[in-house]
């Protein structure tokens, strides 16, 4: 190795040394350890006792586990597409050259910044069946609203509604992506006499497809780990476990029932699920996502 090469090697290792610890201690060790725990009966207060695949087998037969998984998938299946559509729609509107762009953008982005806990308690208040403001509005429109958080069929939709309110981050990313779309493409489309819908389908969407992919993957990762908001708004998944999500059951198993092994098994299944969905998205992406050369 040349002298320059050696200097760069030492310098390189020196610069990344914090990460060597971070990666080793706070990432690789936990990943390996949790895999080990997932094959054990472990309560932290006692030594870990290997039990083979018992945890995984029990999970497959655990009705509450399956319920929490279904609840989470339902939530993700609703909140991701709706959130993306709303974010994109708002971004398109903002990108159309209206005045006051910054003000509107701020207003739509603000909720995404706030502590989830504060939002959760605020919407707990808004969704209140008796005094909640939402139902007052709906009543004025003549709609007889459900009890939201006290009705098992509506607790998840209520949470989806809350997540829509926080779609500001995706919107801002879409906006940036839209602003990057080369204007000449639209001009060419106009020359061909394309309608706005046609322009949307054939110019805009393909051009921002990488951004769409990114937001989609972020959405998957986030919604599958949904925890803080339901922990506050629908503790124990009430009513009737309708709002009991994967991460909540995981937390309960780990820190309420001291079943760390079981919780680790759940964590690993979640990991694999996220990986699978991400790979699926990337595969779909390679077919549909268009990267502008250069």
């Amino acid at each position, binding site marked *: 190795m040349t002298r320059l*090469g050696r200097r760069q*090697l030492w*310098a*390189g*290792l*020196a*610069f*990344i040394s*914090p*990460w060597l*610890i971070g*990666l080793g*201690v*706070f990432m690789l*060790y*936990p*990943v390996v*350890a949790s895999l080990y725990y997932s094959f054990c009966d472990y309560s*932290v207060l006692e030594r870990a006792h290997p039990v083979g695949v018992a945890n995984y087998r029990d999970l497959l037969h655990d009705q509450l586990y399956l319920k929490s998984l279904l609840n989470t998938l339902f939530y993700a299946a609703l909140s991701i597409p709706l959130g993306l559509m709303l974010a994109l729609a*708002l971004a398109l509107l*903002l990108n*159309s*050259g*209206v005045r006051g762009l910054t003000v509107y*953008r701020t*207003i*739509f982005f603000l*909720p995404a*910044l*706030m*502590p989830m*806990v*504060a939002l959760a308690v*605020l919407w707990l*208040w*808004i969704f209140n069946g008796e*005094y909640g403001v939402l139902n*007052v509005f709906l009543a004025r429109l003549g709609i007889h609203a459900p009890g939201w958080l006290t009705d098992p069929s509506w607790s998840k939709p209520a949470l989806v509604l809350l997540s829509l309110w926080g779609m500001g*981050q995706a919107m*801002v*990313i*879409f*906006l*940036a*992506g839209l602003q990057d779309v080369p204007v000449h493409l639209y001009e060419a489309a106009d020359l061909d006499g394309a309608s706005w819908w046609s*322009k949307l389908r054939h110019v805009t969407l393909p051009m921002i497809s*990488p*951004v769409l992919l990114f937001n989609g993957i972020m959405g998957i990762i986030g919604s599958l*780990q949904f*925890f*803080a908001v339901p*922990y506050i708004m629908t503790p124990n998944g009430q009513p009737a476990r309708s709002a009991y999500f994967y991460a909540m059951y995981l937390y309960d198993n*780990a820190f309420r029932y001291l079943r760390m092994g079981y*919780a*680790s098994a759940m*964590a690993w299944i*979640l*990991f694999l699920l*996220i990986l699978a969905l*991400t790979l699926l998205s990337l595969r779909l992406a390679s077919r549909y996502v268009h990267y502008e050369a250069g």
Partner: protein
Amino acid sequence: MRAKSPIARAAVHAILLAGSALFLFPLLWMISTSLKPVEETMLNPPRWIPSALHFENYLKAVTYGSTTLGYIPFVEYGKNTLLLCVLVVSGTVISNALIAYGFARLQWPGRNALFGVTLATMMVPFPVLMVPMFVLFRHLGWVGTFRPLWIPAWFGSAFNIFLLRQFFLTIPRELSDAAVVDGCSEFQVFRQIILPLSRPALAVVALFSFLYTWNDFIGPLIYLSDQRMFTLSLGLQFYQSQAGGTEWHLLMAAATMVVVPIIILFFFTQRTFIQGIALTGIKG
């Protein structure tokens, strides 16, 4: 796509205005509730504007909730949250800048492979790490203290490494090459050339990690047991009585106080925020 016709423009404005009203409303309602006396919170049909502005709700929420809730040291929570934010932000910026420099501006064998591993770790969800980290901190005797909440930030995080590396790559080679020719060590190049040019990216990292720490809930939930050490996110829960029922006016006052600093911060750093988010989205 630009809206050409005046009708289209008006329509867009109308939709945006309506949307803004809908989006703003919950926040305004939060503030309105926080200024009401308790009797006016439970009214149907609801009262939009409080009869009198009860600013003392804020004082009550901060100093002494109610006889039933016991003492809620809200100011303590603010101090604790700020302490953690300072520590996490400085740790994140410093460590990740160093690490990203190592990945971006230096060539050494194994660099790309290690970076690939780094990227891969972004996929690992928090629950996988949660239990072993808890066990680790237990062995270290750090449970119940602030340490698990800020010390890991000083050892890098994949997302920030990725962000800063992308940015560092865009700085022209000639600048650092010239400095090396002048006899600078790598660290000097880092400090005197790269860092000053990276202010926007560093600001984004700082802002994001501030937000993350201010809003963090599950970390404090797991590691903090002494109520006097709680953070704002955790402390907000106290206004919800365990036995049932909530004092909405006080809870909304507390929630407003937790949210307002973020809004103020945002107004001063809007541009950086938006740039930063765009950076993550486009490059990601």
